[in-house]
């Protein structure tokens, strides 16, 4: 598995942590699957745009507006190129959740009663609830591709579930609970063989894995900025040209209309159709700058990211009463539970000691309920995570567990 985390070893000639002002030495920040710290290049790019004079896009007819349009277009190209497509396939949304909802909305009229939507057992609610809602509206059925005992996808079963009734396969690329990497290319191939579309939630993948939408063969893919060292409030919804032409926009209003009459309206062509309202230009600029920090990746093997994760897994496993969920090939995320201790209590105590982890169901309740009745603790790594962060988590956890059992 080639990951950006591995790649960070090649950046040893400069202090990577210095690129992140938000990193505090007295805090071990291990909640990167929720939000990463923002890199300095993103902050600088947004600051330069804002302090240099800003405007709306697609409205003003003055030089600053022209400059803004150029910067917005350039940001879109950078973000699109990051996943191997050109700007004409990249729609900005406010979040991955909004992007997935927009895709579900746009595809709903393709569904008829009895049609099937396949999701995986690993889905975040953002890639589950939109499909359940349109299935209910259209009389379609949502089915779940199951997980194996080793916490990976049962690909054989998933393929066997696809048939002529399957219209959409909606799947995450990396589990936000377990770090499991799903076989997207295989699923895309299988989906297309039965005439289904494949929609990918790449929220957890984009900061860790190389993504080439064309190579993967997916019809739609969404990933966000704030998990990739950029600002919050913006994500990229990558669509096939067919979907751009055929999908109805979820949001209508200013900026996306072609012609409005007293009793009707027509939409603009291409991606503009999906960007109703004034766009978040500064966030787009920051998003692009952040991606420039981690792309293009040389994808060297044997780097520190995998070593750190494996060390974390083995150190946690050495603590009495700790159960670690460690799927083969997982990246960036380690979920675990502690016998007799509620995850929220442990996360609260770790937080008071300067160790930031997440606890609960991680917005993936159907998956987490299979792992634990009370949720899990989750430590998630980033490009700037180092041995001191791992040591801080493990040593404090040992102390907390020891005192609790005394």
């Amino acid at each position, binding site marked *: 598995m080639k990951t950006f985390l591995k790649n960070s070893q090649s950046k040893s000639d400069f202090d990577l942590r210095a690129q992140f002002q938000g990193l505090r030495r007295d805090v071990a920040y291990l909640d990167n699957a929720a939000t990463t710290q923002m890199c300095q290049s993103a902050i600088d790019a947004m600051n330069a745009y804002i302090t240099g004079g800003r405007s709306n896009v697609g409205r003003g007819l003055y030089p600053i507006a022209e400059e803004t349009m150029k910067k917005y277009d350039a940001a879109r190209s950078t973000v699109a190129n990051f996943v191997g497509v050109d700007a004409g396939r990249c729609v900005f949304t406010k979040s991955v959740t909004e992007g997935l909802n927009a895709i579900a909305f746009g595809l709903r009229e393709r569904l008829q009663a009895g049609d099937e939507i396949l999701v995986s057992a690993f889905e975040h609610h953002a890639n589950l609830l939109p499909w359940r809602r349109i299935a209910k509206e259209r009389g379609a059925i949502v089915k779940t591709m199951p997980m194996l005992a080793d916490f990976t996808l049962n690909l054989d079963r998933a393929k066997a579930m696809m048939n002529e009734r399957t219209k959409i396969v909606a799947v995450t690329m990396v589990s936000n609970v377990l770090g499991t990497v799903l076989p997207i290319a295989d699923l895309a191939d299988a989906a297309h063989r039965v005439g289904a579309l494949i929609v990918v939630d790449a929220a957890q993948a984009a900061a860790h894995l190389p993504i080439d939408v064309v190579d993967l063969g997916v019809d739609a893919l969404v990933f966000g900025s704030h998990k990739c060292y950029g600002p919050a409030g913006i994500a990229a919804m990558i669509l096939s040209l067919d979907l751009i032409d055929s999908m109805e926009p979820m949001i209508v209003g200013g900026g996306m209309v072609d012609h409005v009459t007293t009793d009707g309206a027509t939409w603009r062509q291409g991606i503009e159709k999906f960007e109703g309202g004034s766009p978040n230009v500064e966030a787009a600029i920051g998003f692009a700058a952040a991606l420039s920090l981690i792309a293009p990746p040389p994808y060297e093997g044997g780097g520190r990211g995998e070593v750190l994760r494996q060390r974390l897994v083995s150190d946690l496993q050495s603590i009495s009463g700790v159960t670690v969920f460690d799927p083969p090939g997982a990246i960036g995320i380690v979920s675990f539970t502690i016998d007799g201790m*509620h*995850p*929220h*209590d442990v996360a*609260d*105590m770790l937080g*008071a*000691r300067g160790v930031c982890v997440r*606890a*609960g*169901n991680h917005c993936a*309740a159907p998956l987490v309920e299979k792992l634990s*009745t*009370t*949720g899990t603790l989750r430590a998630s790594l980033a490009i700037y995570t180092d041995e001191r962060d791992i040591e801080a988590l493990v040593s404090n956890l040992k102390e*907390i567990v020891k*005192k*609790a059992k005394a």
Partner: protein
Amino acid sequence: MLLEYENLLALANRQSRRGPMVDSSVSATAVNASCGDECTVWLKVVDGAIADVTFDAKGCVISRASAAAIADAVIGPIGQIGLTNGNSIRSLLGVAVSPLRERCLTTPLKALQDAISKL
């Protein structure tokens, strides 16, 4: 923080007033879906006053300690129950529970309020 948890742990694990009440006047259950806390409260009400209370709390230390503290505090006229929000439970517990744990803290209170609203 750990010391506060240690103090709360004894209260959270206390067995008095635990379990269903056979001759209760009313009961209600509240759930904190974000972390799986669940609390059921049974009340015996006589002449507008809570004569007895039991509870069953599953979940984190905060929610279980909150349930125990509330059970200790509500015996008496319903109109004189002064528990209205998380801060009033913080006062009962005597610890500075983070606002991030507000739902843990208030799930037992929600069960109590739901039970009273059924009367």
